[in-house]
């Protein structure tokens, strides 16, 4: 891909992010400004910021890539990401704002008056946050690599440095502006090229077989395999090969490949003819964003779909970077209205990635084969339009992709740094918050260097599953059930979140390879969420003496409109006083 325009576009996004962040720094004065923008952000600005923060690398690049490789089943991802906000609105939004806490651990402590539960919630926030940061950094590396052949680590380092600078300098207020700006940037960066791509598609006669299963080549195409891959063939394939397959050299020869897995060495050229089914690279050998837990899906597709639905619908409310933004609303009613606007904004955005996925199946099906499907969004303008127009549109998309990494990463860093500052570092205050920021970013950056190819979809799915089976029961039961006790909450989080974490960690480590057990481990939400709720309820019922004495007063504060409780949340106000410089 021509990088004449893409590199300046990425640079422009980075500079604009720093600039808008610096604008926030000028008016970010107190600790309260730092953490929750003094709770004065109106619904529209806050909704754009929430949406900007939420639409991550997985949304911007990953969904189109997943759809390209695995077909329309993958559209459940964006649907789940959106519907998660509806569930959050129904059960959590307004009471969470009225709880007057800064972070999820604050909520846990305010509700249950227990330092232990607070620390446990803090550990899960840091864990989920780091898990979610890792793919953002890797996605940035992949994008820069596709655009400019820069080494894989460079993109991650750039994102880490910019995010640390904006977050540490201005805190929440500055990232509110940055993220609202980045929502509109991301929408534009996907919408404008999509319009041109659809026009190009119509000019091409509007071929419709993008929706066919499975994807096919629509013309003769030569594919060069840049990195050694294992191809899984579901049906025999006849292909012209020049290069090495399964250890044997072929020189521009037409050969028949039987059903099964075949190793294609790097540098091999495959020539497909029109109508050939597009083979798919095996998961084990590439670490792109689009390589989901494919093996589990083939064995239990319905189970996997329902597991995905449950994890995304219920997991959204517990994502640390999502929840922290609700504290910036001025009151509970505004928090609710903000959520409705968010639903509209991210729903509008998610209409676009499927367009890229469908067009990718038509015009770039070979990406599925080389394992570069995540690059589909970046490469389509060049493939379909070409020339100067294609380059400019490609540059716009690249800028948007970087905005996606920057915004999600800064939200996550903010949340993790908040927990680290309050619960881990010895003293509070703005200076320590800056130290916490660096710490929050350093660990996933180091991990991305060490772990290497952890697939983005897997890491994001893991974060959702863990959040759905730890924070979802804590929030829902904490807000609606009077008899929740600290031991019950702790046990539920440990059993549910812990088992979900172990299950997906085991899957990623490659244990066990096949069968029902594998499907159960790869999509844990279906059993771990009910398990978490059940544990929390049963242990709470078994320890009725431990129900915190202030429970009725706290629940009254969560649910009563602000005008009936004196218009302010006392605990939080006191804390702001303490922290004020």
């Amino acid at each position, binding site marked *: 891909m021509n990088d004449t325009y893409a590199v300046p576009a990425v640079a422009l996004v980075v500079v604009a992010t720093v600039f808008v962040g610096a604008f926030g720094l000028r008016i970010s004065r107190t600790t309260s400004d730092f953490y929750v923008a003094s709770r004065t952000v109106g619904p529209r600005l806050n909704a754009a910021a929430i949406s900007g923060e939420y639409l991550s690398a997985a949304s911007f690049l990953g969904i189109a890539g997943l759809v390209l490789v695995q*077909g*329309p*089943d993958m*559209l*459940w991802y*964006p*649907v789940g990401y*959106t*519907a998660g*906000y*509806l*569930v959050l*609105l*129904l*059960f959590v939004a*307004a009471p969470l704002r009225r709880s007057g806490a800064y972070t999820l651990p604050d909520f846990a402590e305010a509700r249950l008056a227990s330092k232990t539960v607070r620390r446990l919630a803090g550990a899960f926030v840091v864990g989920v946050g780091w898990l979610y940061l890792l793919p953002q950094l890797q996605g940035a590396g992949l994008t820069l690599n596709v655009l400019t052949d820069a080494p894989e680590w460079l993109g991650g380092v750039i994102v880490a440095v910019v995010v640390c600078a904006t977050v540490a300098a201005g805190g929440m207020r500055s990232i509110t502006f940055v993220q609202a700006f980045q929502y509109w940037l991301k929408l534009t960066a996907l919408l404008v090229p999509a319009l041109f791509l659809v026009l190009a598609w119509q000019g091409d006669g509007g071929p419709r077989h993008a*929706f*066919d*299963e499975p994807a096919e080549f629509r013309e003769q195409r030569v594919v060069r395999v840049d990195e050694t891959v294992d191809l899984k063939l579901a049906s025999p394939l006849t292909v012209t090969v020049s290069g090495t397959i399964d250890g044997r050299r072929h020189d521009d020869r037409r050969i028949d490949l039987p059903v099964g897995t075949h190793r294609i060495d790097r540098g091999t050229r495959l020539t497909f003819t029109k109508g050939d089914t597009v083979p798919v690279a095996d998961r084990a050998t590439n670490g792109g964003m689009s390589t989901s837990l494919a093996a589990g899906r083939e064995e239990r*597709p*319905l189970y996997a*779909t*329902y597991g995905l*639905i449950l994890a995304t*619908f219920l997991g959204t409310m517990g994502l640390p970077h999502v929840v922290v933004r609700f504290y910036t609303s001025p009151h509970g*009613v505004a928090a*609710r*209205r903000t*959520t*409705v606007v968010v*639903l*509209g904004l991210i*729903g*509008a955005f*998610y*209409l676009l990635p*499927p367009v890229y996925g*469908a067009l990718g199946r038509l015009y770039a099906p070979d990406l599925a084969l080389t394992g570069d499907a995540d690059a589909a969004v970046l490469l389509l303008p060049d493939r379909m339009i070409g020339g100067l127009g294609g380059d400019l549109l490609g540059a716009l998309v690249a800028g948007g992709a970087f905005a996606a990494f920057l915004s999600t990463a800064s939200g996550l860093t903010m949340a993790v740094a908040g927990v680290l500052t309050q619960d881990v570092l010895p003293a509070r205050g703005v200076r320590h918050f800056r130290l916490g920021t660096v710490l929050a970013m350093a660990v996933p950056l180091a991990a991305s260097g060490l772990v290497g190819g952890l697939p983005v979809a897997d890491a994001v799915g893991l974060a959702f599953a863990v959040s759905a089976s730890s924070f979802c029961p804590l929030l829902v039961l904490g807000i*609606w059930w009077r008899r929740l006790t600290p031991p019950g909450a702790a046990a539920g989080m440990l059993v549910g979140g812990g088992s979900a974490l172990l299950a997906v960690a085991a899957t990623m480590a490659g244990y066990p390879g096949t069968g029902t057990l594998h499907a159960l481990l790869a999509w844990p939400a279906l059993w771990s969420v009910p398990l978490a709720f059940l544990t929390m309820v049963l242990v709470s019922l078994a320890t009725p003496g431990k129900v915190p004495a202030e429970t*009725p*007063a706290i*629940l*009254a504060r969560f*649910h*009563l*409109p*602000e*005008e*009936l*409780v*004196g*218009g*302010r949340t006392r605990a939080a*106000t006191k804390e*702001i*006083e303490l922290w004020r410089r």
Partner: protein
Amino acid sequence: MPNDPTERRVVVTGVPRRTRRTSGYHRPRTEIDEQTTLGHTYVRSLMRSQLRAALAVFAILVLLVAPLPLVFAAMPDGAGLEWAVLGFGIYPPLVLLAHWHVRRAERNEQDLVRLVEDR
């Protein structure tokens, strides 16, 4: 209005302070502040109506979404429908459900406020 600059919000009530002290009548507002049995009843009834509103919308969401994977799997031409529904059709109902719930939740709260502020 409080002189302390940190207190930004103002308590809005229909009744001046004096009247409340002198009258022997316990208004619901005081009940809530002082956490009497009557105050708890107000909170409980609000929580129940809000939970009912939330569960109603949640039930609609479940009924809407849960059968979809089965329908797509069962239909011979499921893929085309799946593209249409998941790629586009499902988003407007989600936003409408959210909008409907917000109006209902705010009405529940306003009902309580009117009850409490009314003497």
